[in-house]
């Protein structure tokens, strides 16, 4: 089966200009078929980019990309509830649901399920598919064995399975903004300090080890997930789409390496080497895929 590359939503608070430039390069140069756009982490950030969004979408679509609108991960406030409800009414685009509140609105309509919805097993998958879900990006912590069972179930009922193959793993969500907290502020009074860390705010342990990364209410892995040397496994178990999560690095270069690996132009070892040659600021990890500590990097079995 053909494997397609996708680009997940930008998790961090980049300026509108940075986002516009980023997507222009993606449109022109990145071999990805699908691009997920929209603010997933913080409803306060949305207004900065909302104005630019139609133009960015048009640019991506002119370049032949399919654009999917991603919904907020956390929905508590009135404005967050309204944003979620409004997104479902988007007439021209598919949407990806990232909070249970979105499931309420999306029932009976075609929609996608994002990685921040807990789809851990085939029963949940079938239930949601019966309500209109057509495509599932699975939680980052699911091991290969579970993904294989889900992919088989998805094939039986004709829905898509997508797995994150690159970028920081989302590890936790909170109602509290840890970016604001680091600066002695509260979420309502944050002054958007998260913009200072376009690749997330690093947390080191008392021993000085790179450990976690803060992005507002989200906690991410310090390491970048990479399954670039597991593409054959993904294909064999029936995964159809591979998601790259945006980081503040050469994402076009990352996409090119994955595309070459998927197309067979380079082998797993060379792909891994080329990825590392992009001078990544974080170590690579694939532990979740192997059912061990997510931060570990398990060597490929020759």
């Amino acid at each position: 089966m053909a494997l397609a590359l996708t680009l997940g939503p930008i998790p961090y608070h980049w300026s509108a200009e940075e986002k516009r430039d980023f997507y222009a390069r993606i449109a022109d140069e990145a071999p990805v078929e699908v691009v997920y756009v929209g603010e997933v982490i913080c409803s306060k950030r949305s207004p900065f980019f909302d104005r630019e969004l139609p133009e960015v979408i048009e640019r991506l679509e002119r370049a032949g990309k399919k654009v999917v609108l991603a919904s907020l991960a956390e929905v508590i406030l009135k404005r967050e509830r309204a944003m979620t409800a409004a997104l479902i009414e988007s007439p021209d685009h598919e949407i990806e649901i990232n909070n249970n509140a979105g499931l309420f609105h999306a029932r009976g309509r075609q929609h996608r399920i994002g990685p921040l919805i807990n789809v851990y097993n085939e029963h949940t998958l079938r239930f949601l598919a019966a309500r209109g879900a057509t495509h599932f990006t699975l939680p980052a912590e699911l091991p290969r064995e579970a993904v294989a069972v889900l992919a088989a179930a998805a094939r039986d009922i004709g829905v898509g399975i997508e797995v994150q193959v690159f970028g920081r793993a989302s590890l936790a969500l909170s109602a509290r903004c840890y970016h604001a907290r680091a600066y002695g502020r509260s979420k309502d009074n944050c002054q958007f300090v998260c913009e200072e860390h376009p690749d997330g705010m690093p947390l080191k342990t008392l021993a000085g080890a790179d450990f976690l990364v803060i992005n507002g209410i989200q906690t991410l892995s310090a390491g970048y997930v990479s399954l670039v040397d597991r593409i054959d496994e993904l294909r064999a178990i029936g995964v159809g789409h591979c998601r790259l999560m945006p980081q503040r690095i050469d994402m076009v270069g990352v996409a090119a390496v994955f595309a070459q690996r998927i197309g067979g132009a380079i082998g797993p070892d060379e792909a891994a080497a080329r990825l590392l040659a992009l001078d990544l600021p974080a170590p690579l990890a694939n532990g979740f895929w192997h059912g061990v500590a997510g931060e570990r990097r398990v060597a490929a079995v020759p």
Partner: protein
Amino acid sequence: MNRPAKKRPELVCPAGTPAALRTAVEAGADAVYCGFQNATNARNFPGLNFTPDEMAGAIAHAHAAGTRVLLAVNTFPPAGKFGLWQEAVDLGAELGVDAFILADIGVADYAARVHPGIRRHLSVQAAASSPEAIRYFVEEFGIRRVVLPRILTVGEIRALADEIPCEIETFIFGNHGLMIEGRCSLTNYVTGLSTNMDGVCSPAAEVRYDTGVDGCVSTRLGPHIIDRFAPGEQAGYPTICKGRYFAPARGEAYYAFEEPVSLNLAPLLPELIAAGVDAFKIEGRQRSRAYVRAVVAAFRKAIDATLAGGRPELAELVALTEGQRQTEGAARTKRWR
């Protein structure tokens, strides 16, 4: 939902073992919650939880005293292992539990279809924090009560009560996780065991306390130092979201997520009852019988006093909180966020 004023809220108490269950029943619990000895519940710790025989005995004992038994089947079965969760639900039904506490959509669907006559509560692990999310679970799976995430203010709970067609249960006392339950993979990132799939947070087998030459105690989870304590200081259990870390904006290591404090909403009891809360939950299935007895008895008194129009006595509860420090968490004000 229209609510009669001053209804009597249910006190829902932890039962990590048969002995703790009997203790909670004696101390005045209206309901107890418990789980089987496997990954189907979110306190899958060695030495905790119930065998099927113990569960049968516990249910008989609780029911004889007029106490309800709520079975937690509130983790997320990974694909291929769903059978274990199905068995837990079936066994609970056979043994006569009063309600299931559920989080996974697949498991909730199974319980609703196969055992429609048994009440279904939505676990905090389902992370339903808006009227829409809650109504989704009510309409799809006949959920009768939602256990709210510990992230809402009293005002938000009051507004929610008017918008949802089910009962509300809130945590009122105990360990206070900072991440939204059911949406945290921190433990798995470090240990390879998943809170959602295996029911463990900071598993004891991965915890170490190292005393340095200076007498300081470093607490570790897996390979990582989570916190460090001066000689004589009480070393807290290493949980990632309660650890100290370095960040660029901070000169010194700090509690990046929260100070190691324990949740105590006793001072807000009158407001919470007025807001429409139907049940108060005490955390702590991993706690000793003495702790369960003291906390349950104190809350029994506090709730009864509040209903009689008085203010709850709080001093004895403060002494039971971790390290003697307590918080009202998110409940008092949005500034917590």
